[in-house]
């Protein structure tokens, strides 16, 4: 469960201070599928980074699965990212020199799992890439790359998957396939939070959160 209370985030832009988030209250239950929508500069990416423990809020509290994470040090946050959160990015963010299996192994190496190879292969089979294990990202199609990224996100069974425009670089048919995989995972109990400006994607979710100028403006669903 994600519980954000009065979350604020300030950045220094040169000498002037910019308020990106101005007091966000948001509660996402376990197993929910939530979309966050908003125009560029609305603060949705910042909110996403805070939920994903890549960034820390300037003020407010963030409780993830019953634990205050806004007060954690960087080492503990790295651990949370490693085991509790899976990221799926618009640009896939795979390591170009490594094979699909090695890319999926990456979180396992940092968590110290004993047999990373077997778990990585299993995750790749789960997203339908059992036949592409040794291929490098440049030998895969866009949809296949995003599947590798999803396999990497789920390999340690995180409680939350965060998608940052996960279909943004894909054609509509491939995008729909990716959304099907994500919805499947959600159906199995994983919380799914997707940032998008595509209403068609948002339409898949149970709840849509609109953000504008650093505050949540409305809820739908």
């Amino acid at each position: 469960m994600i519980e954000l209370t009065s979350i604020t985030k300030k950045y220094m832009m040169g000498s002037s201070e910019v308020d990106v988030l101005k007091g966000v209250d948001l509660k996402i239950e376990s197993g929910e599928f939530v979309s966050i929508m908003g125009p560029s500069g609305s603060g949705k990416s910042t909110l996403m980074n805070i939920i994903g423990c890549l960034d820390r809020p300037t003020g407010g509290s963030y409780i993830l699965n019953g634990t205050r994470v806004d007060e954690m040090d960087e080492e503990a946050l790295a651990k949370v990212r490693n085991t509790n959160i899976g990221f799926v990015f618009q640009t896939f963010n795979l390591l170009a020199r490594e094979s699909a299996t090695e890319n999926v192994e990456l979180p396992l190496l940092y968590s110290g799992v004993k047999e990373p190879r077997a778990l990585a292969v299993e995750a790749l089979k789960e997203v339908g890439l059992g036949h592409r294990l040794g291929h490098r990202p440049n030998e895969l199609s866009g949809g296949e790359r995003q599947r590798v990224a999803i396999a990497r996100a789920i390999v340690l069974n995180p409680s939350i998957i965060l998608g940052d425009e996960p279909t943004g670089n894909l054609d509509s048919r491939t995008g729909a396939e990716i959304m099907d995989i994500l919805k499947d995972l959600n159906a199995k109990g994983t919380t799914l939070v997707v940032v998008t400006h595509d209403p068609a994607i948002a339409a898949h979710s149970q709840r849509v959160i609109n953000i504008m100028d650093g505050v949540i403006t409305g809820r739908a669903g």
Partner: protein
Amino acid sequence: MLIWQVIKVAWRSILANKMRTALTMLGIIIGVAAIIAMLSLGEGAKKQVMESISRFGTNQLKVRPGAARLGHVRTGSVENLTMDDAEAIKREVPGIRSISPSVGSTGQLKYANRNATSLITGTTPLFMEINNFPVAEGRFFDETDIKLMKRVAAIGTTVRKDLFEDGPAIGEEIKIEGQTFTVIGIMSMKGQTPWFDPDDQVFIPVSTYMRRLYNQDFLNDINIQVESYEEIPDVKKGIERVLRARHRIPEGVESDFSIRDFSEMIATMQKTSQTFSILLSGIAAVSLLVGGIGVMNIMLVSVTERTREIGIRMAVGARRSDILRQFLIEALVITVSGGLIGIALGVGLGASISYFGDWETVITPSSIALGFFFSVLIGLIFGIYPARKASLLDPIEALRYE
């Protein structure tokens, strides 16, 4: 992340940029090779000095007629050192273990129809002990032979080869300057020195030489063995005092004899190898420094190029310490690979120095360990800054980096 996994990642990134990594390694390679060559040369020089010491003995002195002058030009009479002088030194100077006067000149040898020219040395049995030059076969002449002025000879290995080839030598009669001598012994092999071949010598009793062969009443040199190395300066002073008094040399006038010892020669050898070592360690220090800066430079480039990779790794759970470790190990892989190549090159360099130059070189495990240690040290020193820079990247900005 396990260490071999980190090394694998580092190795892959190095292989992706072979040329650039090879050029970066060059400084480390040269530096480590210079260290190895320097140490092997130093060890070789040390060994050579030790060998010289054991060959000639450091507690050996030689008194020769004529003043010591630069350029080896002798002045004054060369016929002023007598048997009485030798006995006076033995009697009056403390700290002398043994003393052996000797005379020598080049002479004609003849056996059957073979002729040879070599150095005829007249001396006493103590000569063997003082010069660490024993007989290998038969015997040397003894005090009785000297007293009776016997015509007996101990010959060096070169002489034996020249006159007898592989045939029997002991008991044979040879002619020295037309006089018949019996061969009673064959010397051990001493080995050639840069100055002369000590094995191309015939030893006969000093009395036989002075009375029977040449009718000469002066000595060519007096070999002296001192009790211990530390006493050499005192013994030299003592000899000076005794001989100057005997030769009636007034105060302020140069001596008409000279006293030589091997410590000077050893010091010269040590100084030469030291000069060379300083030169090589200069090369080593400069190229390791420049090589290290090159490693730092290439690592900074690598960190910038892989900013996005660093962001990805952080997003999936890498801690800052994981990133630091990864880039530090990558720098170490470069410097240690360079170091290993440098060690191989240094060993080869040492071998070719002793092959082409007249220097002995010795590779010791400790010099290899030192070369390895330096390559690790350079990797740590120059790798830490880029690695730290990588570890301090903001994951969000790193992920956005194009």
